[in-house]
């Protein structure tokens, strides 16, 4: 299958995402922290559009030196995208399910040719 055009680089700002089709396969392409990532838009749970939901940093517990609970914060490094059907969260850099890292979305290579961003569909 030929590579699938995603967007012009200048029209795909950091923090944004696109959904493209490669035949019958839907692919979510993310531009995050200077890198591009692409995953099949199919949640491993019940088949929802995993790449179409909100993007939320991982929530972390803050513990004191004495192991007491001090509160919560958003991670500075780990970003998740969330399936809008049921809330399954995936690590945008790996496609791993945040709740069970053994589960991983099918990933695709993203390439830049000049100003154009492509997904290598197969």
């Amino acid at each position: 299958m030929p590579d699938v055009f995603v967007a012009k680089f200048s029209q795909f700002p950091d923090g944004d995402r696109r959904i493209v089709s490669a035949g019958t396969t839907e692919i979510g392409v993310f531009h995050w922290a200077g890198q591009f990532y692409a995953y099949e838009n199919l949640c491993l749970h019940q088949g929802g559009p995993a790449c179409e939901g909100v993007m939320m940093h991982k929530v972390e517990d803050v513990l004191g030196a004495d192991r007491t609970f001090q509160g919560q914060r958003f991670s500075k490094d780990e970003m998740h995208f969330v399936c809008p059907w049921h809330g399954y969260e995936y690590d945008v850099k790996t496609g791993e399910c945040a709740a069970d890292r053994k589960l991983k979305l099918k990933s695709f290579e993203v390439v830049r040719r000049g100003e154009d961003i492509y997904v290598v569909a197969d």
Partner: protein
Amino acid sequence: MDLPLSDFRKMEVAEFDTSKLLAHASKQAAERGYHRFPIVDVDSHHYETEAIDEILEYMDDPVIQQLARSARQATAKGPGVLSPGGVGYQDMGGRVMRYSVRGLEKTPKDRHRDIHLAQRWMDAIGIDIAIMFPTPMLQLGLHPQVEVEVALARAYNRWLCERVLAHEPRIRSMLYLPFNDADASYKMVQEFGATKGVVGFMVTSARYRPVHHNSYMKTYALLEEMNLPLAFHAGYNWNDQTVGMMNKFISVHALGFVFYNMVHLANWITNGLPERFPKLKVLWIESGLAWVPFMMQRFDNEYMMRSSEAPALKKLPSDYMRDMYFSTQPMEIKDLGMLEQTFRMLKADTQLLYSSDYPHWDFDLPSTIYDLPFLDETAKRNILGGNAMRLFNLDMPVGKMAAAE
């Protein structure tokens, strides 16, 4: 609309369309050939508070109606004095987006908005008939004013029958029973039991009234006589002192949606209600299935030692449970071996009824049943629709009749 995200970011959402959200569900329905057999969803929801102004038109009590209208005007956010409220965030902080953006969805004006919305998700998922329940009213049994529960229940039931059920045969309901007033519950069955679209009655489980109280017997007898099933719909109550010890909604939901049904089912059996009302069909909704083997094993074991405390029973508690009906969602599907044993224990082939719970956050698609490797085709079809059609005496949907033949 801007959705608030982490790190002070926002996500702009301009429109929302249920059919688009559920496009993958439509694909599943086509791939699995759901058109070949009926699918009945015994637990789905709408947001009745969005039609509260219409519902208040049906409220008899002029003082409560005025209070509600006044409170609504003051807050412009909800039904005011009608809802006991409660802390909770089923939408996971906006991660399940449809809670926040459903108001953006456009519907034609020719029929009620709730009918249009239901048709969209039913068509997308592949459901022929849906039994519809309210959402915020699931906590109405916790309202401290019994008269408010009665007034709102009757207004809602009248509104639902006239504005929704009368106009769409694919939508049915088990009407809300104001269970904190036993006499009012009895009258509700008398008044609405034979109304078009009404296939039974429902008790919201989150409340503090024991089901074995003598005041309910005439209602059970009437339901039995009219051959109308009685459902207990689970709910949570973070204000309960025991539940309040849990500081995470995941815990409140995981245990809370089972707890009240466990209490009611325990009372139902140990007080011999299945023997007193042997033809009354009882359905337990939205507690998942994992609690069923627990209750069966726990009560069978104790009954063998303490049968003197439940002298009305003529067989094991688990045998009575196998005469009852259970809805599937939210089905615990992580361990297929355990799930298979659960299906066996509760006689899933005849007693289990598919439910989606759509549009709530933990909805289940028909594929959660259809894709189970340990079910044959007949069992799949029974659970997805056949059992419910028999329980509720439903007619085969016209479109499915030809396909089934």
